[in-house]
């Protein structure tokens, strides 16, 4: 027993040393935690740098993921100050959980577009040309981009038969840019992100499924004022300009 006690004391000593090592250092910057939908990564990182330049001793930390994953993480206690969702459904989930600190504000919109590999090898022209023997990849109906796909498909009165229903819009885009798929349905902003690897084809039915992005501060945030300032930056003139540069539409 004595030997056991001595070992336990040694273990405790090691733990204490480790803890005291971690707490050193000078004044830490205030960290603003922004949880944002994956599609917002490029414009938000730009805005984050701008925000840091305007606020001394503030570091903006982003978590980019699918909106539903983010809501789940916030519900489980992830320390988010600001939440920007890719759809209203997931923002509603946050409200149901009583975690919204302010009324959400719509700040951007996004519509679907047909993406084809560079050179458009299958000769796609519009939504109707996706039906005949084309390797078409879309999002699964369970995720927001897939729900939008179902809507435009119904609006056009078409029955699409995709070879794959992917988990996320990024997965769809990858199948297109790698040439595995002849065409995919993604957001306008994704085509912009893909650069030369993909071409976009607009279609009129896309207006039936306009995706609106809401943003809000999260209840229980340790930096509510800073969070609100970030929301103001996004919804303000500068934010709107950066978003437009990345292909987003106005709210």
């Amino acid at each position, binding site marked *: 027993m004595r*030997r056991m006690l001595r070992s336990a004391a040694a273990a405790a000593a090691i733990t204490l040393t480790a803890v005291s090592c971690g707490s050193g250092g000078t004044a830490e910057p205030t960290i603003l935690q922004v949880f944002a939908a994956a599609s917002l990564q490029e414009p938000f990182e730009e805005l984050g740098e701008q925000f840091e330049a305007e606020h001394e001793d503030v570091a903006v930390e982003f978590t980019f993921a699918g909106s539903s994953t983010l809501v789940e993480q916030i519900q489980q206690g992830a320390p988010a100050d600001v939440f920007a969702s890719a759809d209203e459904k997931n923002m509603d989930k946050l409200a149901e959980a009583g975690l919204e600190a302010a009324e959400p504000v719509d700040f951007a919109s996004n519509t679907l577009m047909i993406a084809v590999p560079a050179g458009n090898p299958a000769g796609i022209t519009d939504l109707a040309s996706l039906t005949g023997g084309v390797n078409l990849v879309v999002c699964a109906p369970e995720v927001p981009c897939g729900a939008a796909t179902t809507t435009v498909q119904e609006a056009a009165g078409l029955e699409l038969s995709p*070879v794959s229903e992917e988990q996320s819009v990024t997965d769809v885009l990858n199948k297109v840019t*790698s*040439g595995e798929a002849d065409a995919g349905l993604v957001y306008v902003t994704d085509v912009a992100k893909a650069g030369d690897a993909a071409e976009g084809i607009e279609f009129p039915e896309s207006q039936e499924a306009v995706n609106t992005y809401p943003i809000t501060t999260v209840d229980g945030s340790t930096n509510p004022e800073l969070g609100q300032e970030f929301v103001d930056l996004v919804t303000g003139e500068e934010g709107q300009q950066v978003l437009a540069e990345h292909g987003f539409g106005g709210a």
Partner: protein
Amino acid sequence: MRTLPRWILLPAGLGALFVILPLIAMAARVEWSGFWGLLTSESSLAALRLSVQTSLTSAAACAVLGVPMALLLARSDARGMALMRSLVLIPLVLPPVVGGIALLYTVGRQGLLGRHLEVLGIHIAFSTTAVVIAQTFVALPFLVLSLEGALRTAGTRYEEAAASLGARPSRVLTRVTLPLVLPALMSGLVLSFARALGEFGATITFAGSLQGTTRTLPLEIYLQRESDPEAAVALSFVLMLVAIVVIALAHRRRSP
């Protein structure tokens, strides 16, 4: 046990808890009232069926490709065998997503082999074949490793005796070598089946996701999380039960 210091119990207990507690936590979250309904929904059944089919096929493919590989690695003293062994083990260490990307550039439509297959009218992308390829890729090292180890432990005495009595190499292989390592072969098969059953990253990167064709159980679970977390938990629980059965099988085979 006598020779072990008693304080070992504490970290060992913590370790066991670390593994078991998440499983208990998940089991506690299962909504038993709707469990059967969630499990027998069309999409769940399709995923379950596809997973079992593809994993069995992959395990068979692992046997066909892996047994000869293990034999060569264990018995050949040709130069380069050590390098060969390291290469074969790569899928074990590689994140499956990376495996998926590598496969995409091999048998994808514009891949190294894929573009020639495409000319012959063989399309692998987005087919069940793609799922089996992805699963076999990640599962093969499990079979090769466990079989090679067993072959080395078994040694060559019996094989040499059989050969000295006039048995031809093929006869030695089928009558002496393979029966000797049969338990290891079985547990290797079970392990590769289990690895194939759990395969996610390579499949979603390389094969796509379509109900009944490429959407295996792990992909279905990941998708259900988006819309129906309860169904995801129910399916996870099933996969956990399968894992327990598989481990029980593999261990029973191993101990004499």
